[in-house]
């Protein structure tokens, strides 16, 4: 299980990354954390002719932003994001989801942007990015480009990134437009730390009476890409999130999806557990927010 031969470029800065992408042609590939790419290469399912290593690019690392958004540079380690107080404060859903990503050792190497660019339909970070309607920035020799997440995921591990583009940052909008925010993240997997069979991410904002003012719901593992479940989110709005409403809203999610079977789960199992995961994630988010409401 050894990779096919390739040439290697260690980029020192972003300009060099873009240049290399420009020169490299369609077979060159960026390596960030490599936690998905390297196994694919080892199995020769991926065989880039040139590997552009962005791990030394300082511009691509770091966590920042302002009141309205949390900005995570693409090559920031998942472990760094997981430990970051800023992430916890501004994108608590991401902080929560990061604990489900692989294992500590893969999070030490794996990156936030790498996971999004890789676009695995069951991966946690793309799911959160979609839930929160994150904005992406990609750069190429031709300049920078903003990409809305809603148009980013094209298909199974396919994105709208062009071959010569490098994802540079992810902007998670901060929900501070009023209301008390609660988050829920649930997934069902066979073993802890495995890729999820189905994952659900929910973020809610409640007013001081516990009425839902804003809701975002998305599912992973039920389609070739992560999927926003608008019908469920809408059904939650203006309700006080009583069990019945939540149950009904979650049921809608099951109707919105058309999952497929694999060796670990049937399509029906995915559909049914999607409902369950959505329901649990909503309740988790609700209870978290209500806990905050209750606090003086």
């Amino acid at each position, binding site marked *: 299980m050894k990779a096919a031969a390739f040439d290697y470029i260690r980029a020192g800065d972003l300009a060099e990354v873009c240049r290399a992408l420009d020169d490299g042609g369609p077979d060159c590939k960026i390596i960030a954390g490599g936690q998905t790419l390297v196994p694919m290469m080892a199995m020769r399912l991926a065989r880039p002719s040139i590997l552009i290593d962005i791990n030394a690019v300082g511009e691509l690392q770091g966590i920042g932003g302002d009141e309205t958004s949390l900005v995570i540079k693409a090559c920031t380690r998942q472990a760094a994001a997981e430990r970051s107080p800023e992430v916890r404060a501004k994108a608590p859903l991401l902080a929560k989801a990061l604990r489900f990503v*692989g294992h500590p050792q893969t999070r030490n190497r794996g990156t936030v942007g790498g996971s999004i660019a890789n676009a695995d339909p069951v991966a946690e970070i793309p799911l959160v990015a979609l839930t929160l309607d994150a904005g992406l920035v990609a750069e190429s020799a031709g300049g920078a480009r903003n990409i809305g997440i809603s148009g980013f995921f094209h298909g199974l591990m396919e994105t709208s990134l062009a071959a010569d583009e490098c994802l540079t940052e992810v902007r998670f909008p901060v929900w501070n437009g009023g209301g008390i925010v609660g988050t829920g993240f649930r997934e069902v997997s066979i073993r802890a730390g495995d890729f999820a069979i189905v994952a659900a991410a929910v973020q809610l904002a409640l007013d001081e009476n516990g009425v839902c003012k804003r809701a975002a719901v998305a599912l992973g593992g039920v389609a070739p890409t992560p999927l926003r479940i608008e019908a469920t989110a809408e059904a939650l709005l203006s309700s006080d999130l009583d069990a019945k409403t939540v149950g009904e809203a979650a049921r809608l999610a099951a109707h919105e999806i058309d999952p497929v079977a694999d060796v670990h789960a049937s399509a029906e199992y995915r559909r049914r557990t999607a409902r369950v995961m959505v329901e649990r994630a909503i309740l988790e988010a609700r209870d978290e927010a209500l806990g905050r409401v209750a606090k003086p």
Partner: protein
Amino acid sequence: MKPREISVTVNAKHYRSEVPPRLTLLDYLREVLGLTGTHAGCEHGVCGACSVIFDGQPIRSCLMFAIQADGHEVETVEGLAGADGGLSPLQDAFWEAHALQCGYCTPGMLMASHALLRANPDPTEDEIKEAIGGNLCRCTGYQQIVEAVRLAAKRMREADPEAGPEGNKDRVDE
């Protein structure tokens, strides 16, 4: 592709080598440097047998190319013992608790737990499990491994109650 020169620090020793870009860090340690303590179990990032510490953090050495380690620092199981060959408290606890059978997963387990104890001298059981959760062992059922890490933490704290994270570098003799 033609070999490229890299320089890597492994267990505080500097090495200069020529490597083809596709050589994994795992194969580099084993085949080029002869540090065969680090093992290959799956070569696709699941089993943790290849765990080493890279710039202070535990990672899987099968998921990196050696060329990416150019200019970086790696610690392996061979570096755990003291210069005199004495076992580290963690190694000694693995022996005491019989935290292994075939010994194949052991170097990975040791590196994962070593990194844990360096960052967190008093881990809870859940924290221990989290730290080794990505390291598969087929022999032990993990029970004696968790026990060994707990024992090592306790002994290290007793030996040096002041030790915070990164604190205790003492060795015990056999």
